[in-house]
């Protein structure tokens, strides 16, 4: 695999070696050091979040394990229970390292869940538009255009204003704010695919339209969907953090990264920077690493940029 990674041009010029599309994609993806690094960072973040209960010194939401005596300790201080708080503690004495890993669990869950649901809904609606054509397509695309003329953040804010706080409501608000991006992407790609020869061939064979759309066209729409999906998931995570920071997202009982940053904000002006800054850095690493991966995926999956 290493030689294909260093020189794909050479490997593709050798007819003896048969490469599956996935292998070629993988080789091209790992060609970029930045994207590989970003993917590694993101996977580490996910791993840390998943393993949080086993690798943190305390469960920050088990009141028995949190001591108010530990409140607002600077990074590196020793806690009441004797372990070192490498990232300091927050206003109520929670170890920030533990709080961040637990917060990441919530932030990632919300971001990924809303990303996947919005993808499925947007994909279905976009395909229906491309499949049905005519009036239905016109109506669907008009709604999509209309929604895309408002910033996603405003749509999400509107939804939380109407729905209130809570994990389910935030996911719902994010899905509402983002489905249109997927619908537009799928429909645009499907329109291009619809005119290709393989579709014509399938039509000649008498395959039903439904089957053509879902079995033949949809798999060919996956590339742009994956790209939009990564970028939109990053933006969902960032949007959830923003809403939670504003106090209209997740409640204190579901402390995502955004809630942690909001809690630290009041201490910032008195110079206790760590309570907001470290959760902020975690958010930043997550969002930027997903964006870098998405950016590179766009280059790799774009047939127009193929060498």
């Amino acid at each position, binding site marked *: 695999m290493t030689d294909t990674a260093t020189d794909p041009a050479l490997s593709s010029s050798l007819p003896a070696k048969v490469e599956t599309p996935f292998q070629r994609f993988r080789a091209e993806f790992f060609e970029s050091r930045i994207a590989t690094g970003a993917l590694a960072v993101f996977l580490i973040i996910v791993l840390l979040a998943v393993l949080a209960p086993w690798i943190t010194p305390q469960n920050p939401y088990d009141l028995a394990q949190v001591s108010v005596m530990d409140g607002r300790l600077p990074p590196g201080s020793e806690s009441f229970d004797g372990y070192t708080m490498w990232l300091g503690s927050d206003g109520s004495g929670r170890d920030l390292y533990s709080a961040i890993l637990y917060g990441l669990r919530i932030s990632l869950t919300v971001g990924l869940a809303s990303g996947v649901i919005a993808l499925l809904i947007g994909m279905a609606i976009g395909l229906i538009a491309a499949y049905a054509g005519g009036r239905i397509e016109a109506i669907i695309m*008009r709604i999509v*255009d*209309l929604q895309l*003329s*408002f*910033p996603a*953040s*405003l749509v999400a*804010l*509107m939804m*939380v*204003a*109407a*729905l*209130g706080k809570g994990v389910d409501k935030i996911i719902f608000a994010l899905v509402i704010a983002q489905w249109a991006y997927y619908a537009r992407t799928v429909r645009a790609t499907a329109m291009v695919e619809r005119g290709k020869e393989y579709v014509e061939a399938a039509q000649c064979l008498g395959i039903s339209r439904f089957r053509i759309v879902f079995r033949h066209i949809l798999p060919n729409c996956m590339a742009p969907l994956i790209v939009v999906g990564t970028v939109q998931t*990053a933006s969902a995570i*960032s949007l959830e*953090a*923003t809403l939670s*920071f*504003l*106090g*209209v997202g997740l409640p204190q009982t579901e402390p995502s990264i955004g809630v942690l*940053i909001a809690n630290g*904000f009041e201490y*910032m*002006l008195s*110079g206790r*920077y760590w309570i*907001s*800054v470290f959760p*902020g850095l975690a*958010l*930043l690493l997550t*969002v*930027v690493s997903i*964006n870098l991966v998405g*950016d590179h995926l766009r280059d790799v999956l774009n047939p127009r940029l193929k060498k």
Partner: protein
Amino acid sequence: MTVFIIRRLLQALLVVFMMSVIVFFGVNIIGDPVYMLVSPDADQADIEAAISRLGLDRPILEQYWLFLKGAAQGDLGNSFIFGEPALKLILHHMPATMELAFSALILAIVIGIPLGLFAGLYPDSGISKGIMAASILGFSLPTFWVGLMLIMLFAVELRWVPATGRGDLGTLLGIHSSLFTLDGLSHIFLPALNLALLKISLAIRLTRAGVREAMGLDYVKYARAKGLSTRRIILVHVMKNIMIPVVTVMGLEFGSLIGFSVVTETIFAWPGMGKLLIDAILQLDRPVVVAYLMIIVLFFVLINLIVDILYSILDPRVRLQDQGA
């Protein structure tokens, strides 16, 4: 054209109406504002008096009907908290938001275009790569986090400018604004910069793309052949051509600046409409929430309409009728 505008305005009304339904019935599900308004030791009679004073004892459909009737006459209801008309409250907070969005727009143009010009002229220079990397960061960093960092750096550590509030207001030509006093300017600097970051990145990218495209065109080659100085070619000929699309797009971003100002205003305690909205959501002040969202939706629909009309004027190939209704 006229038919197009009328259709779009009707569509706008429909959107605002649907939005009002969602928000009006939505806010009625979450929380009961009465308990935020009466004192904790109020007895049942007091609470019921408050409920009937706010009109909350009526069936929801009747409440909505009364709201629609009022809205048609320009009355969006009274704020539960302040007791004033919601519309008046929002209009009262609007100048602060406009001033912030306007300053951010100016900052974006003043900072973004020169940087984009440089990156477009010397695409291989290290500085250009730095500028482009910074613009990618500008796109992907959450606004509120950058705002926190700005406060920490400039207000807490360096103590150059204050972190919160609007400062002294000055008056020029009958307009009250922070922009006319030194104290006000020092207050607006951080929030405006924070709000501008995304647009600075956008201006950099637009200008860079425009410059790179223009530098290879015939009129630039001709100007070179004519013996004009590089300076004159860039500042007069190239800039003139790329400024039109860049400034148009930036101007069109004004709406999203007002939308995004919700975040910036909350961080910097800037007394604008956005902060009013967040406070209203937190205090369950329904009429203000509904009124703000209706105004902002109307605002966006109008901006989009103006955009479409402008495009059709700038680019005759765009036919308005095609996008219809």
